[in-house]
């Protein structure tokens, strides 16, 4: 068997057997949900219902109900889109990139991070959909044979690249997630006794047997999907950044955007994973699997990506001055000192200064502080997109057109609604799906489990 260095901290605490792992994860699915779950899903469901109402109102009335004007003609819609897509980057990064690097700590968190990814990408995809105004013509984004003189979509446009990038990313993440879920659904199927549940999980598990050849194929599929999902993750947010970088608006027309957006996405994605997991591990008693070490590893990713984002902000500032382009410099001076300086400095504080606190080991292993920081980072990353989009637009080449952006209740309602829908979906996932990858966690039990590591260490000494 593969031996692991005694210096590495155990990833599964206490003395667990394979059966204990099944019990700990499947038990909460079989039993009644705790009262807290009903309270949370009621709150999330109400916000989701209000948001759905706002979306329907928007579709009925048109995007004139948003606070857009002739100068700021792109604001919260695209901010929210980029924010959600960014959040949706952590799941596949954890499951694909960390799989390629053989990081065992990913196994306890990849399932819920991927679920979060899928729900976040659904929320992101909502925005371009409703932003079209006439959503019933959404199929026009695909190259379909048509009667308009055979008019095709424009493959030169980053907006079309986005269509392909987001739909590929969403569907590949979904398949990757589901293929990992099949063996775990089989575990639930073989364990539950209530006929309805047995039937439901029987259908979901696709008749999985777990024989030797199936597992060989499973590992091959996981590895190849991880291999092709890795460049996919990087391509998706690069393409999102091209939406801005290929246009000629000062503040957007920057070659630094792709790596800067990708690291920002990973940064905010890990923050959202922290927000969700810190609550979930407490409520579902997963402290033995999602340990402090896991939280610390994720905080280290947050320091690294947060620092990359910080360097990117400063590089942008420097280049705007060094380029000697008057309009480019003005865009940045206006961001930092203009009427939107509150947004700019919120972004700088939340994204550049606050993650540096994680250099202190006490802080990055403190659960309450981590939770607080995860919220701060997500606020900061929302402001980043708001600053890039709105401050670059609101003062254009013609001062007579200068204006401010004021969101309407529909803007706010749609954004809050997507948060409500996201949390509703996540709570449903946490209630009915195996929240840890059972088969993966079991496979590292005898290598990284605390009691097995201690046994191995004792064995070594005698």
């Amino acid at each position, binding site marked *: *068997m*593969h031996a692991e260095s005694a210096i590495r901290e155990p990833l599964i605490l206490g003395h667990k057997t*394979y*059966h204990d792992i*099944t019990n700990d994860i499947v038990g909460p699915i079989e039993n009644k949900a705790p009262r807290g779950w009903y309270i949370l899903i009621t709150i999330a469901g109400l916000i989701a219902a209000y948001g759905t109402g706002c979306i329907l109102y928007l579709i009925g009335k048109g995007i004139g109900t948003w606070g857009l004007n002739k100068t700021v003609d792109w604001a919260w819609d695209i901010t929210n889109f980029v924010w959600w897509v960014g959040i949706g980057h952590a799941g596949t990064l954890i499951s694909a990139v960390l799989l390629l690097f053989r990081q065992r700590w990913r196994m306890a968190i990849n399932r819920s991070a991927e679920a979060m990814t899928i729900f976040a990408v659904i929320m992101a995809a909502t925005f371009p959909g409703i932003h079209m105004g006439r959503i019933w013509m959404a199929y026009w984004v695909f*190259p379909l044979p048509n009667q308009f*003189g*055979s*008019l*095709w*979509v*424009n*493959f*030169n446009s*980053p907006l*079309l*690249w986005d269509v*392909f*990038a987001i*739909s*590929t990313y969403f569907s*590949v993440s979904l*398949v*990757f997630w589901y*293929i990992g879920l*099949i*063996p775990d659904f*089989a*575990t639930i*199927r*073989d*364990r539950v006794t209530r006929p309805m549940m047995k039937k439901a999980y*029987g259908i979901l*598990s*696709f*008749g*999985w*047997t*777990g*024989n*030797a*050849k*199936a*597992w*060989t*194929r*499973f590992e091959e*599929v996981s590895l*190849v999907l991880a291999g*092709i*999902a890795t*460049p996919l993750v990087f*391509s998706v947010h690069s*393409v999102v950044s091209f939406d801005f970088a290929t246009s000629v608006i000062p503040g957007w027309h920057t070659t630094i955007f792709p790596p800067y957006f990708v690291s920002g996405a990973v940064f905010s994605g890990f923050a959202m994973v922290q927000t969700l997991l810190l609550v979930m591990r407490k409520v579902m008693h997963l402290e033995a699997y999602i340990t402090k070490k896991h939280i610390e590893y994720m905080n280290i990713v947050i320091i690294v990506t947060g620092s990359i984002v910080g360097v990117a902000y400063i590089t942008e500032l420097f280049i705007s001055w060094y380029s000697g382009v008057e309009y480019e410099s003005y865009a940045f001076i206006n961001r930092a000192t203009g009427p939107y300086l509150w947004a700019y400095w919120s972004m700088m504080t939340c994204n550049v200064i606050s993650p540096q606190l994680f250099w202190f080991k006490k802080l990055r292993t403190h659960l309450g502080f981590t939770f607080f920081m995860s919220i701060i980072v997500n606020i900061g990353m929302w402001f980043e997109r708001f600053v890039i989009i709105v401050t670059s637009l609101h003062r254009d080449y013609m001062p007579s057109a200068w204006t401010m952006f004021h969101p309407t209740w529909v803007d706010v309602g749609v954004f809050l609604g997507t948060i409500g829908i996201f949390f509703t979906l996540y709570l449903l996932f946490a209630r009915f799906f195996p929240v840890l990858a*059972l*088969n*993966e966690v*079991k*496979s590292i039990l*005898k290598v990284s489990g605390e009691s097995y590591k201690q046994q191995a260490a004792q064995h070594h000494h005698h």
Partner: protein
Amino acid sequence: MANKVIYAVYDDPEQLKDGARKLVSSGIKVKDVFSPFPVHGLDPIIGIKRTRLGIVSFMFGITGTALAVLGIWYFNIYDWPMNIGGKPSFHYYQNVPAFIPVTFEFTVLCAAHGMAITYLIRNKTLPGLPARNPDPRTTDDKFIMEVRTADNHGHSSEEIAGLLRQTPVTEINERQC
């Protein structure tokens, strides 16, 4: 003599591998192994060949690349070249940098979904199919080795069970088939 299936139940993957090695070195064929997670190093012992799914994925991937190149050439170069800011639009090779992102995404799309569908079909795991593992505990914490007398004509079921008992097996179950 009726054919029998013998299920040897183990608690640990390493012990199961020892058992499989023992049987195979005595010239007995192990039909299959059912386990709650992949048992690394088992395949060469019981003679399972490497899967070709990686090749399948590559084939689907290059099909995707070819379709994307052909489609984009037809839509934006041959059928309806669009003048976008005067950029070259009459030859594929002049316009190709702008076509890379979609070509890449479509390659990944085809490679991933083609492989996933092949995987589900080859494993016979599709919605609505019934569970076919011999014992429900194999998805929880038991590792079960299946040996068929039909595959091992020189050995009686007693002989095989005797060999298995020399390994740390926890249960031996026999069934007629």
